[in-house]
């Protein structure tokens, strides 16, 4: 009998799939619904110090191969988010995603998430469409290092850093996370993108720029995990375009100990977690992998 149990450092998971930050994870009850649908953990919407409405509509649309979005980090702010966490934490593992402009913001937010019962924090160092946040702070290795080390001294729960593929120095940024004591790297966030309407001769998103997610980005994400696995010793979490067990297996074999699913919740529905779990079990059974761990990084040998 194969086991889908896995762990990301000290965070053990009954099942290897989590909901990616930004998807059905802004409210407590929504997080609980995702936990009950076969996810091993949930990652919250990225939460900041103050309430933020995000970018104006249009901030989302369907494109060939996936979605683009420029949600712009909408969130109720860390103080109000306590009641959502209170509802979700008793029902399963919750990873608190947070965003900020620098080490001080991240430290304050991480400390609150720890108080609220998060089993880890995920630092959003990678949102491609929010000015002053995300990718703008997450493409400079020294900034990433100082954020991670500040958060590490502020909390005792594991600190994961979610990185952007919109850089040519991904492995340097990954090393900066590891050197600063980071517990895991999550990759990838969306690819910076734009959609233009020929009829109206303008970008469709109110924010002009957006991020591409879904099946189209999967090979980019798999490559990112493979590259990171080649240089890092800390565990990796793969995310980007996973919608079935094959996609998940690719990420695991590239080096991910666990994975996250986002856009496929839109295209496949919430049943996607159970579909991936059963497909992965059947594959592991047939090919003689007794555990997720035995598959991690298999493509490197």
């Amino acid at each position: 009998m194969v086991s889908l149990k896995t762990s990301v450092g000290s965070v053990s998971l009954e099942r290897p799939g989590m909901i990616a930050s930004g998807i059905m994870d802004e409210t407590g009850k929504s997080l609980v619904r995702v936990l009950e649908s076969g996810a091993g953990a949930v990652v919250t919407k990225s939460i900041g110090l103050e309430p933020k409405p995000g970018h104006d509509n249009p901030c989302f649309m369907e494109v060939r191969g996936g979605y683009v979005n420029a949600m712009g980090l909408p969130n109720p702010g860390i103080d109000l988010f306590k009641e959502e966490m209170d509802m979700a934490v008793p029902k399963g593992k919750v990873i608190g995603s947070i965003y900020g402009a620098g080490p001080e913001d991240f430290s304050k937010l991480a400390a609150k998430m720890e108080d609220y019962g998060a089993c880890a924090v995920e630092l959003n160092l990678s949102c491609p469409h929010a000015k002053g946040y995300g990718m703008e702070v997450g493409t400079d290795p020294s900034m990433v290092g100082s954020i991670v080390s500040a958060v590490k001294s502020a909390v005792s729960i594991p600190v994961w850093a979610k990185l952007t593929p919109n850089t040519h120095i991904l492995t340097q940024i990954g090393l900066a996370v590891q050197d600063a004591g980071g517990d895991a790297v999550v990759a990838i966030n969306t690819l910076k993108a734009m959609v233009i309407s020929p009829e109206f001769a303008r970008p469709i998103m109110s924010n002009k720029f957006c991020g591409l997610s879904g099946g189209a980005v999967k090979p980019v994400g798999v490559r990112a995990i493979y590259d990171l696995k080649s240089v890092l010793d800390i565990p990796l979490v793969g995310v980007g375009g996973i919608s079935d067990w094959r996609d998940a297996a690719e990420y695991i074999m590239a080096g991910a100990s666990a994975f996250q699913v986002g856009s496929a919740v839109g295209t496949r529905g919430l049943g996607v977690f159970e579909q991936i779990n059963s497909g992965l079990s059947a594959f592991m059974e047939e090919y003689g992998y007794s555990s997720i761990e035995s598959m991690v990084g298999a493509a490197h040998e």
Partner: protein
Amino acid sequence: MSDVVTIKKVVQEAYDTKTFVFDWDAEVRPGQFIMIWIPGVDEIPMSVSGITDATKSITVKAIGDATNAIHRFGEGDKLSIRGPFGNGFDLSSKNVLIIGGGVGTAAIMPAVVQTGADTIIAARSDKDLIMLDTARKHASNLWIATDDGSVGFHGNAVQLMREKLKEKSYDCIVACGPEVMLYFTYKACEELDQDCQLSLERYMKCGAGVCGCCVMDDQRVCRDGPVFTRSQISKLTEFGVSKRDACGRVVKFR
């Protein structure tokens, strides 16, 4: 997916409400909605108010920036739309009583056309009534209610529904309107043990069930709804009580 469509016809429904008919051959079920982009202004969800094979329509009350901007569109203008989204009504039984309140009438009209069922249209006053011609043509019986009694039954949609349910039994109530109307429709249905399907509304961003901004409890109005059954609604603690703003903060209705 996103489509660019051309407006074929504009119908003035009331002093503040217009119907825009456009060429669109997508398959749409009664009760579904689309997202309409108004360049430079906003993107908003709109119920589909008319369905033929080759055309669809929306019926828009001018109440804010986006809806006023749509009112400036005319015949031949292009609309950029996404969808259709949502589940739509279950019209497997034709023995239903359909109720539209205010501009919510737009959302139920395709169900009236498809079923020919008995229909109640309600509004504040005679000048606010919309889509009566279509309803008259298709509904077996059409009953009108106005809050001020200027035409038809003097009272609201729920009061008239209660009267009609004394005279005839229906398999299901199908309704869309302001949340306060739907809340009391639901309460009356619980009291009378009457099945219902209500089309609900919340602030939306993606429309596709991804972002989670439009949730009512754990249900996404855009994807799990917008039409919910009586038993589903019985589990929604936020229905009629509170909504979430663009930041995801709880806003109480009263």
